[in-house]
C-alpha cells in the first residue's frame, strides 16, 4: 500500500497538479479579452506589468493593504493559515528524507518542535476561520458546505500528519491517510476552488493591469492598495 501511494499514485497526483495548474493559467490568459475586459493589455504592457506587480506585492504583505489593516483579526488568521499551509510541507524532516531517498536531494529541515508549532498554527487558524464563518452574519450568508469541504481538504494532511508523527494509534494507518490526504489536496488544487493557489496571482495581476493601464495607472503613481 505504502509503495502504491508513494509510487504510481504520487506520480499521478503530481501530473494532475502540475498539468492542472498550468492548464488553469493558460486558460486564464487565453480567456482575457482586451475589448470585453476593457483593458488594452498589449499596447501598454509596461504599465500593465507595473500595476500587476504592485497589486500582487501589497496583498502578499501582512497588513500591506487597507483591507488587511481593516480586518486585523482575520488578517492574522489568514496569514498564519496560508504561511503554515504553503511552507511547512517543504521543511518537514520526514518529507526531506523521502526527497533524498527518491530524488537524491533535500531541503533544509525544521526541528520537530517547529514542525509541530507550524502544524498547530494551521489548525488553530483554521478553527478561528470556521468560528468566524459562523459568528459573523456577513460571512455566514455567503458560506456554503463547499467552503467547509475545501477547508477540510486543505487541513486534512496536517491533522493526519500530526497524528502520524506522534504515532497516535496505528502509525501505518495515519501515515497512509496522511499521504492520501496530501495527494487529495494537490489534486484538488486545480480542480476546486483551491485553484486560487494560482488564481490569486492571475486575478490580482489582471486587476492590477486594469488599474495600471486604464484606471489611473498612466496618470498617477498607482492605486494605494
Amino acid at each position, binding site marked *: 500500500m505504502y509503495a502504491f501511494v508513494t509510487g504510481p499514485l504520487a506520480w499521478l497526483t503530481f501530473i494532475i497538479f502540475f498539468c492542472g495548474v498550468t492548464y488553469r493559467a493558460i486558460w*486564464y490568459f487565453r480567456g*482575457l479579452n482586451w475589448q470585453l475586459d476593457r483593458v*488594452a493589455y498589449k499596447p501598454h504592457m509596461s504599465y500593465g506589468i507595473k500595476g500587476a506587480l504592485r497589486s500582487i506585492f501589497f496583498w502578499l504583505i501582512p497588513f500591506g493593504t487597507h*483591507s488587511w489593516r481593516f*480586518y486585523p483579526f482575520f488578517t492574522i488568521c489568514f496569514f498564519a493559515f496560508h504561511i503554515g499551509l504553503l511552507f511547512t510541507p517543504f521543511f518537514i524532516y520526514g518529507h526531506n528524507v523521502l526527497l533524498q531517498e527518491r530524488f537524491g536531494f533535500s531541503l533544509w529541515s525544521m526541528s520537530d518542535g517547529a514542525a509541530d508549532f507550524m502544524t498547530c498554527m494551521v489548525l488553530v487558524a483554521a478553527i478561528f476561520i470556521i468560528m468566524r464563518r459562523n459568528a459573523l452574519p456577513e*460571512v455566514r450568508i455567503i458560506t456554503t458546505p463547499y*467552503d467547509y469541504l475545501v477547508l477540510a481538504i486543505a487541513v486534512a494532511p496536517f491533522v493526519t500528519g500530526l497524528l502520524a508523527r506522534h504515532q497516535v494509534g496505528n502509525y501505518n494507518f495515519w501515515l497512509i491517510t496522511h499521504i492520501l490526504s496530501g495527494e487529495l489536496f494537490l489534486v484538488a488544487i486545480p480542480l476546486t*476552488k483551491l485553484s486560487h493557489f494560482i488564481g490569486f496571482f492571475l486575478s490580482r495581476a489582471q486587476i492590477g493591469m486594469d488599474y495600471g493601464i486604464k*484606471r*489611473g495607472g498612466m496618470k498617477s503613481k498607482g492605486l494605494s492598495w
Partner: protein
Amino acid sequence: MPEGKLCNKQTVDTEEQLQALLDDKSGKQYYEEMNYLDVDSDALWATMQKTLKSRLKTWLKICAHCGMCADSCFFYLANKKDPEQVPSYKIISTLGELVKRKGQVDNAFMQTVMDTAWSKCTCCNRCGMYCPFGIDMGIMFSYTRGLCFSQGFVPWELKIGSGMHRIYRAQMNVTTEDWVDTCEWMAEEYEEDWPGLKIPVDVQNADIIYTVNAREPKHYPEDLAEAAILFHLAGENWTVPSEGWEETSLAMFAGDWGACKMQVETVYDAMTRLNAKRMVVTECGHAYRATVLEGPYWAGRKDGQTPIPTFHYVEWVAEALRTGKIKIDPDKKIKEPVTYQDSCNYIRNAGLKDVAREIMGYIAEDFREMKPNKEHNFCCGGGGGLNGIGRYREQRNIGLKVKRDQILETGCKLVIAPCHNCWDAIRDLEEEFRIGIRWSFLKPLLIHMAVVPDHLKPPEE
C-alpha cells in the same frame, strides 16, 4: 404578453418610441408590463457564453466567501450591516445564479436581478479594492446590467436615457441647434461683464476642444458660461463641437452597449474633425469614465485611448493654477473649512487624487479630508444612474447616510463636488437630512477667486 408595448427587449431608436415612454408618467405602465415580460433564456445563455470569459468566470469560481468586501460597500453600512447587502452575496445571488442556471430563469428572478443591479450597487468599484483576489463586483454588476438590458429588464428612466443617446446622441433631447443656440446665448449674456467673451463653435485646430454634460445646456447653461469665462481668463484657444459635444452616457448606466458605442463615436468624430490638440471634459465623473476610460473599448480602439489626449476638468484647473494662467486672489481664498468629494469615476477609477489636492492647495485655507478619502472614498450614494431612478428613491436615500456622516465628521459646511452625480447626491442629502451644508462645482468658486487682469475687465462707466 411576451413583449410589452413600452417594456420590451427592443432598443429605443425612434422619437415615437421615446415619446410613448415619456408619456407614461413614472413608468407606471412600463413596470406593469414588465411583470409579464418573457425571459429569452436561450438568448441570455448565448450572450453569457460569448461574453463571460476567464476573468469573470474565475471571479465567480474562486470567491472564498471571506466577507472582506462587506464593509467596503456603503449600502451594507447604510443598511445597518444587512448581510444581504454584502457585495459577494449580491453578485452570487444574481449573476452567479444566472450562470449556474445557464440563463434558465423566470421573470421574477430577472426583476430581482434588476433591482439588485441598480438599487444595491452603484458600480463604484470600491469592493474590488478590498477583495484579496481583486474581485470587482462593480464590474460584474455593470456586466449584469448589460444582460438585464438585453432582456428588457431595465429601469424606466434608463430605458429612456439610452434611447435619448440613440436618437439625440445626448442624454437629453438637446438637438445640435439647441446646443449651438445655447452657446451663442450664453456668450451674449455674459459678454457685458466679460468683454470679448466667446464660445467658439467648430473652430479647427484649437488647443482645446471642450465637451459637456447635456444637463448643462438643458438645465444649467450658466455652467457653460462659467467654463467660457475661465478659458477666457486663462487665454486658452478653445472650441466646442457643434456635434459630439455630449460626454455623458446614461447608456453605460443602462447597460446598452450599442448606444454607448454610438455616443462616444460622435465625440471621437468631433475630436478628429476639428483636429484639436487635446480635449477637456466638464466637471462630471461618469462622463469622463464613459468617454475617456471605457469609450475607446466600445468604439473598438485597440490602444484603449481616445483619438486625442483627454483631460478631466480638474486636470485643466490644476494646470491653469500651476502655470499661473489663472491666479487666485489670496484674499478671496476659501477661509472656512471645506471638504472635497472624491468622485469614484475620476479618482478611484482614473487616478486623479493628487490633482484634486493640488487644486485645494491653491484655493482653500482650511481643506479637510473626508475619512476615508481619495480612491478609498465612498460613493456619493447616487452614482451608477441611481440618482435618476424613481423606483429606487428610498434605497438611494438610505445610502446617502454614509456620505452625510462623512461630511458631518469633517465639520465642514462647504463641499466641493466636481462631478454632476456627486453634486446631485449631496444636494439631495441636504434636502433629505437638513445638515446645513452647501455644495459647489469648482467653476463658480474659481471665477469668484480669480484675479482678473485689467485688460479683461469691462470698461468703467
